[in-house]
Every structure is written in C-alpha cells, then in structure tokens.
C-alpha cells in the first residue's frame, strides 16, 4: 500500500510479558479520519503509542505515509506524525510557558522564525496572544488542550494521532475543540487516527471506525453504519446501545 497514510499489518504489542494488542491490521487513507473505539484496556491507546514509538515492544509492520516505522526513536518521523494526548492537565510541562512549549519542537528540529510561527499557531488554534507567556496552570482545560494541539501541529505534520482529545473537557468546550480539529483537518489536509470511547464524537469527526475489544479489532465499519445503528458485531452493538442510551432523553 503506498497511498495509505497509516498502514498496520499484523501488529501485536506487549508491555513486558503481557500481550496487549493482537494481530491488528488496518489502513487509514491519506486525508481520512479514522476512529478506534472500545472500552478501557482494549488496547486502542496502545496502538497509538506503538505508532509514535512510546510502546517499542511490538511485532508486525507499521508504516506511515509509505515509510516503514522502526523501533527506535526517529526524528524525521516526528515531522510527519504527531500525537495529542488525552489529559491536557498531564501532557504539558508545568514549569514551561506556552511559548516555551510551542517553540521546543522548532528548536529540536532547528527550524527558524520561531516567534512568528508561535504567534501564527496560537491564532490558528484560537488562543489569544496574551496566553503566550502563561504557564499551564493559568489556563483552563480547553485552553490547555488547544496548546497541546498547537504543540503537535508546530512541525506541520500530515498525520495526527489523537488520544481521546476531548474526554477531559466540558461538552461546550468539547464542541469547540471538535470544531477546531475539523477545521484544521480541512485547512491542512490532515489525516487523523483518533482514539475515543465517545461514539457521537466519532459520528461528528470521523469517516470510518474500528471497534476494539481485548486487544483485537472486532469490526471495521463506515461511519454511515454507526449513524444508522447498523453495526454487525454484537460487542459493537452493545457499545452502541450504551452510548445511544446515554444520548436519548429518558
């Protein structure tokens, strides 16, 4: 596969002796938004961690934009693929200002024009310039998640891995972040691989989804199937009922 943004083949991941993900195969086309859903412990975040190199104990094949991914840290890889973590309260360095946080990837990769790039990026994620020299504890959750998204976008990657980007946020802020993610994807032609357990979010932001359970993909479906509730696997249907129930007013 050459045109796939992310291609995983027979990917098995373990933490130490414990196998977590078993034989996962799927590909995400370029410009597509793909969701991994499932309960806690189903291995969905682990797949993202393996792709970025945070879970190096894997076998099988991972390729991103046609380039196979090795097990070692890879500086060039960071330029094409970046990750946004779940908890904006934990993923940003507490003793660095927003400015330091956003400029660091540029410094690491020796990219100049940091001042304007940081300013532009703050504007792109909808943060006022006055937030530039604040510390994370001076920001709200939604603002922090914007900083985390901005940091991931600093190197202008083409593939974004999103690990539950809105689960720590309020519904109204979630709407803002989802709109932002959708806008960024449209403007920059990004590919998203997103982990979530919130099916309505998938319905809003994604084109396809894979349902995972106990480290295996049980179903890959189109988002149209989700919208109409025509998921095939019994577990997916159960998940659908659990969140569909959460949506219907009593």
């Amino acid at each position, binding site marked *: 596969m050459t045109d796939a943004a992310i291609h995983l083949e027979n990917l098995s991941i373990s933490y130490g002796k414990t196998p977590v993900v078993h034989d996962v195969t799927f590909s995400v086309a370029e410009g597509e938004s793909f969701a991994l859903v499932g*309960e*806690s*412990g189903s291995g969905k975040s682990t797949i993202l961690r393996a792709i970025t190199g945070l879970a190096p104990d894997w076998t099988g094949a991972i390729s991103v934009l046609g380039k196979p991914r090795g097990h070692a840290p890879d500086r060039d890889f960071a330029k094409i693929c970046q990750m946004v973590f779940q908890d904006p309260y934990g993923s940003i360095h507490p003793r660095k200002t927003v400015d330091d946080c956003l400029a660091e990837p540029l410094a690491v990769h020796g990219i100049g024009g940091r001042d304007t790039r940081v300013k532009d990026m703050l504007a792109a994620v909808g943060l006022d310039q006055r937030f530039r020299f604040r510390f994370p504890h001076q920001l*709200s*959750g939604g603002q922090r998640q914007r900083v985390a998204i901005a940091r991931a976008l600093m190197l202008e990657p083409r593939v974004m891995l999103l690990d539950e980007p809105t689960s720590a946020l*309020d*519904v*109204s*802020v*979630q*709407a*803002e972040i*989802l*709109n932002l993610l*959708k806008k960024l994807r449209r403007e920059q032609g990004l590919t998203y691989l997103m982990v979530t*357990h*919130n*099916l*309505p*979010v998938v*319905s*809003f932001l994604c084109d396809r989804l894979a349902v995972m359970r106990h480290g295996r993909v049980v179903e890959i479906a189109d988002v149209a199937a*989700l*919208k*109409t*509730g025509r998921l095939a696997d019994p577990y997916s249907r*159960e*998940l*659908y009922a*659990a*969140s*569909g*129930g*959460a*949506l219907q*007013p*009593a």
Partner: protein
Amino acid sequence: MTVPLLDIENLTVTFPTATGPVDVVKGISFSLGRERLGIVGESGSGKSMTGRAILKLIRRPGRVTADEMVFDGIDLTTQSEKDMRHLRGARISMVMQDPKFSLNPVMTVGAQIAEALVTHKKLPRRELQARVLSMLEAVRINEPERVARLYPHEVSGGMGQRIMIAMMLIPEPDLLIADEPTSALDVSVQAQVLDIIDDLVTGKGMGLILISHDLNLVARYCDRILVMNGGEIVEECKASELHQARHPYTRGLLAAMPRMDEDREELPVLDRSTWTTGAGT
C-alpha cells in the same frame, strides 16, 4: 413540599485575586427535599464550589457567606469545624470526581471503608467487617473479601469509584453530594455506577445532589435540574422538561453535544457574549 432537607438562601463564595475579590458563586438560593437534584454547568460555573460550600470545605482565603444554610434543622453557617466533622460523612457525604486521587494509596480498600464508618460509630470488629463486605456487595463488587484486601492502585477506575461510593454511603448519610462521579469513567461503566448510586439513594430515601457537566446524564438520573453559569443559577427546571429549556445558555449546551446521527458540519459553540456580564475579565 414538607420541611426541606437542605435550604440555601443567598449563598456566595468569594476568592480574593490580584485584581480584587471574585465571586465564584453569586448569591444562589435553592432547597432540596429527599429528591435527586442535578446541578449542571461548565467548568468554572461554580457548581463544585456550591457542593463544597455546603460541606464547608472551602478553605481560606476563600470565603463563604449565606443568609441561610440549613441542613435538617441545623444551621450550617454557625457550625464550628469540630461540629462539621460530626456532620461530614455521617449526615452529608460527598463522592469526588477521580478515584485515583481521592482514595488513600497506602491503605487497603477494606480499611478505608471501615475507617469511614468507625469515625462516626464504634462497632465491634466482626460486625464492622461484615458491614464493609455487605457494602462492597451493594455496590456490585464481586468477591468482596478479595477486593477489601486490595490497594487502590490494584483496582480499575470504575471499581475505584464504586469503592468511593461504598465509603461515602456506609455511614448512611441523609444527603449525598456526587461531584462528577463518572467523568473519569468509560461510557459502559458510567451507567453502572450511576445505577448503583440511584438504587442506593432511592432505596434509602436520601437526598442526592448530582453535579455534572453532562446535561443528558443529569436529565436521566435526577428529578430536578439547576443550570449554573458564571456562579448564578440561570435556569431551574424539571428533568423531564429539559428539552424545553428556554435560557440561551441551556439551549447552547444542549446543541453543543454531538449526536449519534450527526450530520451538522459544525457544532454550534456557545456565544458567551450574549448573556455573561463580563465576568472574569
């Protein structure tokens, strides 16, 4: 309504800041019988502060003032710290948001639940143990004997939250304040935990204040809903009538939620300028 369990009149919580005092809760009033009341709002709307103010858990430099704050005939505003300790846990208890941070990491689960009970009531050890195990069973934990010997890091998030609930309900309080009890949990576990709270609360005829940012969830589990924004109650309605809510803020929150059959290109975002009174700027 008969005599309310909790009656709050003009409650204000103030924190000093570099730019002068800020009211995070601005003179709200409500009363609660033995019913399920939901408080909804975004982060920073003052909903948790309201919950904490009821238990007088707001520490200096924060200041709480109220014209009236009466719980079951007891005037909370005049209670000393020592008197409050007899109330907290025994009469009013609170389930916090994240079990990871609110359980003691160096005590076993069983010991923590027992502590919650012993603090308020002296019991023989055997009876204590039996109460703990039956409470763990009540929150639907399988193998309570085994779980009672575990430490908090050995249990999952959903189990941790159920343990918190067990701990809070074992002294059989009259009022339970649940502050975002499920926001750290999975969708599938969320429903289970809320069902447990619901069962126990209705079974024992307690009052419940469920604080959450999830409108639909509150609508499902409560009888009455208060919508808070910027420290004020902007709307009060019956849970069943939430979808006819009139205030633009409530309507905005409802619209901002993605639906399962989402076909909107963009989610409507709250236009904060239309009703906020320039708070915080």
